[in-house]
């Protein structure tokens, strides 16, 4: 039995958003009588955690606890327009729309609080725990709940805000290709360690180590979810996945989760990652999109690690045991260059 180990690296960038059609999203925010804030969207949470991130962004700007933020999405009768959840755009576009809406709502909240406390709104600060206080005057404060009640029942004012973010449309120059297709770039470097069974062509991925630069980790736990889940998907793309195993021949297309091969819990490598933050000028608190890119860098890292291990290159995805074994056989016949 011959098992050879190898290490490969890759380095990638990934665009946040793709705006060839113009790319807006909106948010509406209003306070309830009791000082909770409803963020109304038509945006879709695919499972990446959009609702949680939008809660954190709204809470940060409003200066209230995340628990008092309610995300209401997605109903086109009530939610303002959103282009959709794709192209690693959601955090960037919707986050910026929420910042705009929340800023307006916060100003309305502070105006009411200022009148109640008989100070200028500009002299107030929020503590993020549900109170609004006069800067430098400990003890002189009002709760967000009381301010919201006063707005509704005493002043007859809304505490609300409207937000939109638009990445304007870019029209490519078809002569030169000049265009402005995206908002910012996130970055990653991945190192794969693999073991190749040279008798069967089977590859086992032992470890995937990555460094990701994503602008701002708005929720580090969810960033890690993307990195771990994406690393797995990248490994899956590299070694297993195809709807047409004999492409371009259409024979034997998989129809179930047995035939459509993906690594199971017994096939996963060790994952490790570090996070870098270089805030983007356009991102909410500097954040860039990380949803898609995490599946990309493992693929060439694994391909390069396989070459490092056994000296043959497979330039066709997925790198199946068959492709690798054919290449190893060919290399055994032809002297290595």
């Amino acid at each position, binding site marked *: *039995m011959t098992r050879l180990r190898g290490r490969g690296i890759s380095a990638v960038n990934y665009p946040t958003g793709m705006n060839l059609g113009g790319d807006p999203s909106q948010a509406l925010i209003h306070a309830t009588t009791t000082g909770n804030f409803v963020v109304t969207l038509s945006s879709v949470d695919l499972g990446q955690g959009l609702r949680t991130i939008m809660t954190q962004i709204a809470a940060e700007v409003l200066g209230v606890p995340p628990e008092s933020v309610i995300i209401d999405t997605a109903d086109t009768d009530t939610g303002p327009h959103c282009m959709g959840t794709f192209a690693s755009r959601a955090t960037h576009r919707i986050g910026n729309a929420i910042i705009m809406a929340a800023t307006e709502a916060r100003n309305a909240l502070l105006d009411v609080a200022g009148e109640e406390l008989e100070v200028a709104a500009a002299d107030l600060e929020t503590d993020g725990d549900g109170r609004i206080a006069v800067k430098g005057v400990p003890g002189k404060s009002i709760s967000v709940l009381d301010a919201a009640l006063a707005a509704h029942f005493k002043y007859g004012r809304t505490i609300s805000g409207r937000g939109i973010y638009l990445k304007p449309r870019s029209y490519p120059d078809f002569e030169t290709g000049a265009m402005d297709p995206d908002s910012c770039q996130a970055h990653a470097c991945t190192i794969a360690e693999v073991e190749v069974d040279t*008798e*069967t*062509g089977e590859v086992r991925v032992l470890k995937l180590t990555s460094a990701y630069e994503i602008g701002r980790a708005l929720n580090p736990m969810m960033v890690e979810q993307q990195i771990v889940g994406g690393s797995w998907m990248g490994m899956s793309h590299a070694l*297993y996945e195809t709807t047409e*195993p*004999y492409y371009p021949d259409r*024979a*034997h*297309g*998989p129809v179930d989760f*047995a*035939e*459509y*091969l*993906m*690594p*199971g*819990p*017994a*096939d996963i490598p060790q994952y490790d990652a570090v996070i870098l933050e270089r805030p983007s000028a356009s991102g909410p608190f500097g954040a860039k999109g990380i949803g898609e890119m995490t599946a990309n860098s493992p693929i060439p890292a694994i391909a390069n690690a396989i070459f490092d291990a056994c000296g043959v290159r497979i330039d066709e995805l997925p790198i199946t*045991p*068959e492709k690798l*074994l054919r290449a190893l*056989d060919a290399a055994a016949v032809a002297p290595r260059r």
Partner: protein
Amino acid sequence: MAFAVHRPESVPAVIAALAGPGRVAVSGGTLVIRDINEGRSFPNAIVSLRRAGLSGVVRNAETIDIGAATPIADLARPELAFLDGVLRGFASPTLRNMASLGGNLFAPRPYGDSGVALLALDASLGIAGPHGARRMPLLEFYAAGIAADEIVTGLRFALPAPGTWRWLKATRRALNSASVLAIAAVVETDSAGTVAAARIALGGVDAHPVRSPAAEAALCGRVLDAAAASHAGEEAAAAHPCFADAYASAWYRRRVLPVHMRRALLGI
């Protein structure tokens, strides 16, 4: 379309319930119900074997009897410990609670690995039908099948002598994976290490699990070492057609058969 579900409580009642067009016997349901879910099968009635007394394992003096409707998971027992590898390689634990040993004989390729093990064990089947009960070798079942109004009631085989059992399932992922190749063998060697007798069965090389006379002949009379085992694999690769599916091509199956034969027989 809607179909009736019968739950007969004896084998004669099962046979009676199966009389008529479009009636299908079901034990675990993992094949038949899936086909119904996907619009490939439109039975008039399902006849469940679950309550027909066809489950269980009985150890006789020389042999083991296993009811056809026995779930794969129920085979995890001390007297069948040699089958642990077969069991662990069989789909997922959840599916093993449902799929039955008898039902697995009807699984289309590349599924049905338990049949590979049973072939190497030289198992025989109990069959029941309108004309009574009979026994048939598993080999014959794969060649000729049974009639639509018959059912498999049980399997019987002799326990292999200690140290003679070999099993390997080559898969694309570690667990819950159909086989690229399945290899089962009972290999008896004399004190000099020479193979005195061998039964070798293969999955992944033909339309259904098969015995490999070519591999058996290549092995008998030789000392069981890496060269002999690989040679047996080469003979098998030349003798069986193999096939392509979503997991592997026929070329790949043939190419790695000698490797896996060696690993199956010698563990290296």
